[in-house]
Structures are given as structure tokens and as C-alpha cells.
């Protein structure tokens, strides 16, 4: 009897923000290719992502990125079993490019179409390099647009324990970076400058929300940084940008680590993962690693290439959705405010 299981190959497409990406993923865990065309230099001119420009770049690049992903994986569309695509949340015009392209390819090749939630993708990035990682675990998703503390109960089953009440963590990094003239994107620049500063120099506030211990708020610490700078300027005082960066980063990190560890213990989980663009931040990684070690918790994190927006993570998420039976119709639309777990 032929018991050999056929490999399942997913072609995944991601265009929710300013990265045009495509990837081929085998059996949900093995990345055969991962192509990312970043527009970041273009958006730097405007101090942030301009939705219309992002959408225009996506349409210019998308076919090239997809063809490269297939070529790098050494496969053709005939080898692909399903098409996965991010359909939310994100910038609607940007999402629509990937969604329309994915639908057309799936339709023409008579392949199943699997819509993927962008955050589900980020969480699933952890499965790529940690083959032993399986749910349940706790995951902190931190990026320019999202700050979510999620209990991953099973593949495709999520409970959001906490989220930001105002700014996303990455958004606060961008705004503070602008205030100290570091430019866009702020995260990596603050991370770098912080290494030269004293994280305990300025006591910026750590927000804790009374009735929901896992929620976050970063607008307060951001305002405190802006007030501190204004105060220095008014008094004609010099201020140390590296100290501001390091102290701000520490304040954000403390809250992220604190809430995460609280949740891990409360839910009795012994595995913790981080994901999203800000998960590349070296100070956050180091603090999380230490906290996990102290609490006897296994700590997982993706390589930076899988933290940034990419399609490999979408391919992994699409694989588990696919084997769970998720299929989308030809009327699939972009859903800019898609909720995690909604299908």
C-alpha cells in the first residue's frame, strides 16, 4: 500500500503595507523561497508609509516578486497546491493588489484560495525555525501597526488577551524617532542609538491599565518623551538623544515583558514567542529571553527576515488554514480591519 504522503506546496502573497512579498512554503514548515521587495526608501521621503504610493508600487512589482519566488523555489505553478494571501488587516488599497492577483492566479490554475490574517502570519513565522514548536503557547505580536498579546490555543485558534488601547509599539518608536530627528523607520534607529545611551537616565512612565492587565498603552510614554524634549528646549538645556532613546525603549520593553510574563503564568503556559517587526528589537529580545529564563519558560523568536512583513509566514499560516479546510471564494475582498480568528 502506498502510504507516502504527498508534499503540500503553498504559494503565498503579502501586500498589506509597504512590502511586496511572495514565498513558496512546503508542508507548512519549510520555506523554499522568500522574496521581499521593500519600498521603504520611497516612503522615507514622506516620513511614513503613503498608502497610494504603496499600492502603486505593489502593482508594479507583484508579478516579478511572484515569479522570483517560484524560480527560487525551483517550482512552477503546476507544482503548487494552494494560493495563500493576506486579506487583512492593513491598507485597503495595498491589500487589494495582492488579493486580486492571488484570486486571478488561483482561478486560472484551478487552485484553492486561502485568505490569511496578517497577524496569524506573524505568529506562524515562529513555526519556520522552531520545528518542535506547537500550540498551545503565548505570543506577543509587536509591529508598526499592531500590539497584541495572543494565546495560541491551537493552529488557527486564537484568544486575544491584550491589545494596545492607542498607539502600536512600533508606531510609538516611529514618533519618538521623529522627535529626536532619527527619521523613518524609527524602530531600528532607536535600537541602534540606545546602545550608546543610559536606559535609566530618564524615568519615562510605564502604563498599566487598571481593569485589563494585558492591555497596553503607548501614547503616554510617547507624550512624556515629547514633553521632556520640549521642556529641555524651553529651558535652553541640551538633551542626550541616546539617553532618550534608551530610556524610552526600556520603558516600552518593561511593559511588554511585564504583561507577557503575567499572562504566561496566569494561563499556565510554558512556551512564549514574539513576532512582528518590533520583535527584531535587540533590547526587547534580550529582556524577553532573560525573563523567560528566570521563569523557566521556553522562548521562541523568528529571525529578523521572518519578523518583518514577509510572505513565508503567510504561507505557513495558509498551510494550517488549508489543512483545517479554510477555502475562500472568488469574491474574497480585502478587509482592512479584519479581526484575528475571523474567516
Amino acid at each position: 500500500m502506498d502510504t507516502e504522503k504527498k508534499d503540500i506546496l503553498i504559494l503565498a502573497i503579502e501586500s498589506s503595507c509597504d512590502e511586496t512579498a511572495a514565498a513558496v512554503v512546503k508542508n507548512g514548515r519549510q520555506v523554499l523561497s522568500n522574496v521581499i521587495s521593500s519600498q521603504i526608501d520611497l516612503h522615507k521621503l514622506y516620513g511614513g508609509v503613503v498608502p497610494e504610493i504603496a499600492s502603486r508600487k505593489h502593482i508594479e512589482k507583484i508579478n516579478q516578486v511572484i515569479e522570483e519566488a517560484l524560480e527560487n523555489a525551483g517550482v512552477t505553478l503546476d507544482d503548487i497546491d494552494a494560493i495563500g494571501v493576506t486579506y487583512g488587516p492593513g491598507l485597503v488599497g495595498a491589500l487589494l493588489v495582492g488579493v486580486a492577483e492571488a484570486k486571478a492566479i488561483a482561478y486560472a490554475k484551478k487552485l484553492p484560495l486561502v485568505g490569511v490574517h496578517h497577524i496569524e502570519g506573524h505568529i506562524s513565522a515562529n513555526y519556520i525555525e522552531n520545528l518542535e514548536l506547537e500550540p498551545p503557547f503565548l505570543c506577543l505580536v509587536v509591529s508598526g501597526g499592531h500590539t497584541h498579546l495572543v494565546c495560541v490555543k491551537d493552529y488557527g485558534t486564537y484568544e486575544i488577551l491584550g491589545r494596545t488601547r492607542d498607539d502600536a509599539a512600533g508606531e510609538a518608536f516611529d514618533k519618538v524617532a521623529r522627535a529626536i530627528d532619527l527619521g523613518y523607520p524609527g524602530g531600528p534607529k532607536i535600537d541602534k542609538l540606545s546602545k550608546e545611551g543610559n536606559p535609566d537616565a530618564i524615568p519615562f512612565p510605564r502604563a498599566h491599565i487598571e481593569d485589563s492587565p494585558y492591555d497596553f498603552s503607548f501614547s503616554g510614554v510617547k507624550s512624556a518623551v515629547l514633553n521632556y524634549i520640549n521642556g529641555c528646549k524651553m529651558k535652553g538645556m541640551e538633551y542626550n538623544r541616546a539617553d532618550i532613546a534608551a530610556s524610552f525603549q526600556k520603558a516600552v520593553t518593561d511593559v511588554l515583558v511585564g504583561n507577557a510574563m503575567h499572562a504566561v503564568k496566569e494561563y499556565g503556559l510554558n512556551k512564549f514567542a514574539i513576532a512582528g517587526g518590533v520583535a527584531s528589537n535587540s533590547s526587547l529580545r534580550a529582556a524577553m529571553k532573560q525573563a523567560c529564563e528566570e521563569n523557566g519558560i521556553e522562548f521562541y523568536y523568528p529571525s529578523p527576515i521572518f519578523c518583518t512583513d514577509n510572505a513565508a509566514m503567510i504561507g505557513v499560516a495558509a498551510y494550517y488554514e488549508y489543512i483545517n479546510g479554510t477555502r475562500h471564494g472568488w469574491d474574497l475582498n480585502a478587509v482592512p480591519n479584519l479581526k484575528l480568528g475571523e474567516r
Partner: protein
Amino acid sequence: MRILAIDSSGLVATVAVVEEENEISKTIAEYTINYKKTHSQTLLPMLDEIVKMTDMNLDTIDAIAVAGGPGSFTGLRIGSATAKGLGLALKKPLIHIPTVDGLAYNLCYTDRIICPIMDARRNQVYTGIYQMDGDKLQVLEAQMAVGIDELAKKLCTYGKPMIFLGDGVPVHKDRLEKELMTDQDIAFAPAHMNQQRAAAVGMLGIQYYKEGKTETAMEHEPDYLRVSQAEREREERLKAENTHE
């Protein structure tokens, strides 16, 4: 030769399959919808309906014609990404039909000057000025984004009977009648001919295909006729800074 045509540049979404065999062309199927659903929700289901109804094998098409702009930025990209995805998967070339040319071709065989008008907001219209020579479309003024007054001024210089169509007509009809009625013979296309029709895009596509005017799915991108608001504002700011120096 068989062409799949798509236009989602304006309010309507429209898909057609047209053919030419032994110099005889025909529309196999056309599906046009002007409804509140988004083009993202309608375009591919419409194509699927056509394919099912006509028992068509998509591999039998020779090229995909798409209204390549101007139009709603998002609408253009939905049509464009759909065409690019189909082109990539089917390994077929694309044909970029200027949106306004496609609209004008609805009124094939009229003796009048044809002037499509699409509402472009910011007090502008996307338009062009055309004339038919049998079934050949002559472009008198290529598609452009201009103010309605400037368009009226241009049209006055032709001194010929003219006909208008497009989703910009209801917005600008009174203005055009006021500016042009006194000494010009003007008419407005009836409702069944005044909006984008993919069959017209497809018929122009057949002509383009025979002239070798195709592009790869990778090469294709919409022609918006306008830069984004952010780019425009940045250019204005840089210009202002330069003149101040």
C-alpha cells in the same frame, strides 16, 4: 483569435470575451454590472460565470485586454492585478487599452466627434476627443485630465456635431449645455451605451493584438494620468522652497 477583456476603471465592472475568425468578429459573452458591491467582489465571479456559461477553457484565449487607466486608482489596480495574475498563470500577453479610448469605441460608426467624460474630482475630468473612420478610432486629442471649462474651449474649436458619454456626463451635463449649446450640435449617449463596456475594450484589443501592441503581464501597470496626492504636495513644497532660495 480570442480576447478576454476587463474594465474596472469606473463605477461599472465589466468583463467580456470577444473573438475574431476569418475577419468576422463577435462578442461571445459580456457581463457588466453597476451595483454597490466593490469590483474586488464582482470581477472574478463575473469572469467565472462567463467561463461556466460558455464552457470556455481559459487556455484558449490569446491575450487579456485591460482598461489601463485613467480611472479610480483602486478600481484600476483591481482590474490590473486581475489581468496580471491571469496573464502570469496562463502565460498570456496583456493588451493595455487606454480607458477613454475604450469608452469612445462604444460609439463606433457615429459621424459625430466623440467625447467621453469621466469624473476625476478636483474639478477635473478624464477625457479625450475622438472621431470614427468606419470601425477605426481616430484620436484627435489623447486622453487627459483637464478642467471642464478647458475641455469646452477645446471642443468649440472643432465646430462639428459631437456626442458625450461616460460617468462624468451627469455631473457636467448642465455646464456643457450652457457652454456649447448655443452654436453647437451636441448629443448625449443613451444609457445602454454611455458607460464602460468590456466588449468595446475587447474589440479595440483585437486591433491592438493584430498590430502587435501587447505587453507581458510583468510589464503591465496602470497609467493613472496623475501622480498621488502625497507626491503632488511634495513637488509643490520643493518648488516653493526652491523659488524662495
